[in-house]
């Protein structure tokens, strides 16, 4: 990762690396994907209340790392590709890890965009960006491998450059894209390119897909050595799994609440504690 890339990364919060996969590698991978098209699952719309991002549900192709050999090989090769390792060692530090994913987005024409999410404010310590004495650090980086072209204004990954350093909340219009203040930027990418972006530190999302060809973007969600967002960390987080039996056996619900393993992407399944005026500790309702 040279000085120009570091400058761009620090300034904008994302980076497009051109031509990481050869034309032959792209074609080989796309041929595999074509054969597994019956496994595509269409989820709900990720546009929420946005008008600008409205569309149909987002199609995904799951389980690509576990495809039978040799079909899994191109995806395994992405995991610790030199282009990834050389940059993530700088971005996240040595010992970076795959936190969750890969998520393979295979949008069709008309697939909804995704509301902008993430921002420097409020501060999210597990994914935050920090620069000190020439060293950059960010807790979460998504590496998105492109298997199809994505042309200007045609949808796909979009972001708010420099928002990883924002100290003010993101306005609703930027979040929905309905009044984006001309801040939302959709980079042009070609098949074989790789997009790196700060996940949740930088405001990012997607604009609706407008091309006749599908969007094919594989998102590997990496984290620094000491951050957890989801994936297996979520699976092993319940106290009775995360700790030895003698440690948690017989604990009260309040005690168990602080014994869950680390991960951030919970949807209310982690009990939170509060203290009443009389000093009683209880689970927050």
């Amino acid at each position, binding site marked *: 990762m040279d000085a120009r890339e570091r400058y761009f990364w620090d300034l904008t919060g994302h980076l497009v690396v051109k031509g990481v996969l050869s034309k032959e590698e792209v074609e080989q991978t796309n041929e595999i994907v074509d054969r597994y098209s019956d496994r595509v699952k269409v989820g709900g719309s990720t546009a929420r209340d946005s008008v600008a991002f409205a569309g149909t549900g987002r199609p995904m192709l799951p389980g690509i790392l576990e495809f039978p050999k040799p079909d899994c090989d191109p995806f395994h090769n992405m995991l610790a590709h030199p282009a990834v390792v050389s940059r993530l060692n700088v971005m996240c530090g040595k010992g970076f890890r795959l936190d969750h994913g890969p998520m393979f987005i295979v949008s069709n024409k008309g697939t909804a965009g995704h509301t902008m999410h993430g921002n420097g404010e409020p*501060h999210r310590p*597990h994914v935050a960006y920090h620069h000190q*004495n020439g060293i950059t650090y960010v*807790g979460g980086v998504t590496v998105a491998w492109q298997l199809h072209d994505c042309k200007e204004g045609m949808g796909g990954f979009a972001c708010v450059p420099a928002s990883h350093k924002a100290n003010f909340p993101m306005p609703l219009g930027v979040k929905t894209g309905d009044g984006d203040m001309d801040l939302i930027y959709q980079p042009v990418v070609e098949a074989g390119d790789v997009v790196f972006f700060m996940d949740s530190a930088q405001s990012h999302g997607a604009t609706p897909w407008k091309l006749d060809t599908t969007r094919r973007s594989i998102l590997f969600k990496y984290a620094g050595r000491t951050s957890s967002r989801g994936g297996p960390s979520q699976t092993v987080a319940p106290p009775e799994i995360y700790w030895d039996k003698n*440690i948690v056996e017989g604990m009260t619900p309040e005690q168990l609440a602080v*014994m869950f393993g*680390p991960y951030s992407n919970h949807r209310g399944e982690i009990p939170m504690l509060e203290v009443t005026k009389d000093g009683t500790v209880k689970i927050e309702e």
Partner: protein
Amino acid sequence: MSDNPYIVSEEEKYFFDLRGYLIFRDILSQAEIDACNAAIDANADKIIAPRGQGNLTRGATALEGKRGRHEMWELIGLPSPHREPFRDLLVHPLVVSRLNEFSGKGFRLDHGPALIESIEGDEGHWLHASGEPFNPAVSYHQQNGKIYARGITVAWQLTDVNAGDGGFACVPGSHKTAEPTPDDLREMVDDMGLVYQPEMKAGDVLFFCETMTHGTLPWKGKGKRRSILYKYASRAANRAVGKHFTPQERYGDWVNELTPAQQAVLYGPGMHQGEKTVVMPTLESDGKEVTVTEGPLKLFG
């Protein structure tokens, strides 16, 4: 402390942000102190020096002593009823109210609690941690009036610590430093007048940022030092690796098909096992080739 002891006051926030630690006085009753001490006495055979002698001083002559640090782990996993006093402290209202404010709701026990027990002449612990180099595992940040401390240790005092006794010591304000800490200071050769050893009584409780430079001075007190350390982290921060750390433990046997480099990025989060630095593969790359190095993880100075 505010009128309601379970609401964090503005003065507390100011002090914690400025200094990196807080001490609350006379929080435990004598009965609670006695219960903890009795539970420890009943399990005294579990108090050991797991690191031997000299491991924690790192060659610092000023921190040397006659004996290595003695510890007892898994206090909350002791047979009942000995574990109960320590489980009560785990979510004590003073802890919950402060950690909700300083580390955020959903804070968690990362590792510990562990007893540190010292007798006169026991060695100290090299002064470690600092704002520089930046350590994301325990980083300190303040933004728009909100404090974000990823690692806070809560140390309950079961015996008195008088001025000059030794024990816990720190460099106030060092959680924000952006300059390297002089080696002489870490080794207590020349502390530049910056190292502070707080006086505490049995029943007091100390909160400190793990980012702040801290360690232990050799114990000179006539009585035993007994301090119980709970190592908390914010919801998504990791220091100790969990039980499910290897790629196989986290993903299943299909990962055996992967190369060593590919497996290296599938390890679980964390930096150490128990108090030992974790041994795991890390990757290097010049952008063309990837090489794997297996060894103790060395990340943040």
